[in-house]
């Protein structure tokens, strides 16, 4: 298969692009292979960046995905900054384009939440929905940045791996889903009371005589929520990124006739997929927001004996 400029094969190119930049601790006595092939034995535990897949698996649990953290926090800060600026420069007479755009988004989220969240009064839900929607949308939109535009210059500067789409990292989507799940539990217990919460997971749906079955059904139902939330976002974005990578990896960097033709074909394919992907990107952000609101609504529902 075609090799890129750094002489990687197709599948090496793919797995290189699917690897996060990991910062973690290598244990003492680990034999580190340098770029020139020499082996260096670490004398004590070292915190460092991983330069190969083996080093990543050696780092175990306490490994930080620096690129995911960097891009997600940067995008979150950008979102807060832009929205705060639009709110600060608010004017009734002369609304700027930015202000109109922000108002449109806020209105959209507000209407969606009003339509879904009906069981109680809670002023936290709509802002949370807005935050989730815009933040996830911004992170998803990083998928439309050409796959080599940021990682390749970074590699020339000495960054071994770089994944620019934070939502293609399951750690981030799982963290988001777990936060939502934590809020779900918190609001459930707050609105029903602890006893009411216990009742709602033990006395439903078959009545008190089937307590173990009720508990089992409710627990599975409950655990499926964060799991499906995290995996849906991750899987969609991961698959989308994978297809972009396949198209990019298909292109041979050769100035021959067939090389140029494949290049043009790759560009067209990339463009087509990007246009289709705009739908997925927005839809997944919307679904994440929508399901969060639905779960919050469920959390506030009063327990009723059926």
């Amino acid at each position, binding site marked *: 298969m075609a090799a890129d400029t750094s002489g990687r094969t197709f*599948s090496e190119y793919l797995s290189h692009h699917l690897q996060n930049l990991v910062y973690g601790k290598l244990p003492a006595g680990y034999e580190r292979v340098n770029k020139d092939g020499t082996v260096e034995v670490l004398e004590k535990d070292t915190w460092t960046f991983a330069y190969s897949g083996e080093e990543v698996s050696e780092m175990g649990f306490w490994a930080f995905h620096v690129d995911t953290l960097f891009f997600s926090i940067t995008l979150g800060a950008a979102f807060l900054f832009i929205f705060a600026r639009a709110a600060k420069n608010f004017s009734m007479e002369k609304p700027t384009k930015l202000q109109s755009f922000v108002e449109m988004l806020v209105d959209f989220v507000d209407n969606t939440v009003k339509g879904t969240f009906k069981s109680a009064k809670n002023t936290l839900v709509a802002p949370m929905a807005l935050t989730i929607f815009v933040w996830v949308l911004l992170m998803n939109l990083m998928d439309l940045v050409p796959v080599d535009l940021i990682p390749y210059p970074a590699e020339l500067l000495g960054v071994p791996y770089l994944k620019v789409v934070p939502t293609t990292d399951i750690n981030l989507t799982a963290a988001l889903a777990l936060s939502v799940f934590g809020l779900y539990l918190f609001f459930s217990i707050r609105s029903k009371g602890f006893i009411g919460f216990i009742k709602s997971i033990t006395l439903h749906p078959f009545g008190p005589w089937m307590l173990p079955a009720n508990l089992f059904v409710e627990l599975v139902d409950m655990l499926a929520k964060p799991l499906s939330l995290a995996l849906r976002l991750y*899987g969609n974005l991961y*698959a989308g990124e994978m*297809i972009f990578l*396949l198209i990019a990896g298909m292109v041979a960097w050769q100035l021959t006739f067939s090389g140029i033709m494949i290049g043009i074909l790759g560009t067209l394919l990339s463009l087509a997929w990007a246009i289709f992907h705009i739908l*997925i990107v927005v*839809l*997944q952000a*919307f*679904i994440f927001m929508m399901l969060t609101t639905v779960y919050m609504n469920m959390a506030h529902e009063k327990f009723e004996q059926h």
Partner: protein
Amino acid sequence: MEIALGLKYVGAGLMFGLAAIGAGVGAGILSSKLIESIARQPELEDQLRPTYFLGIGLVDAVPMISVGLAFYLLFVA
């Protein structure tokens, strides 16, 4: 080794095909019901559309994951 490689391709092919069947049936049912509902009550269109997109997104998700994993199986693993 040869057989293992062949089975990998068969597996990936099955993943693509089954994902396409599932998503096709799901999206087809959803769209046809949406058209039926709008034809019956055109004034409800604005309310139906967000729910429709939500449903399409939910239908779309699992097959997309399957396709991504199939590509992973084919080219990376």
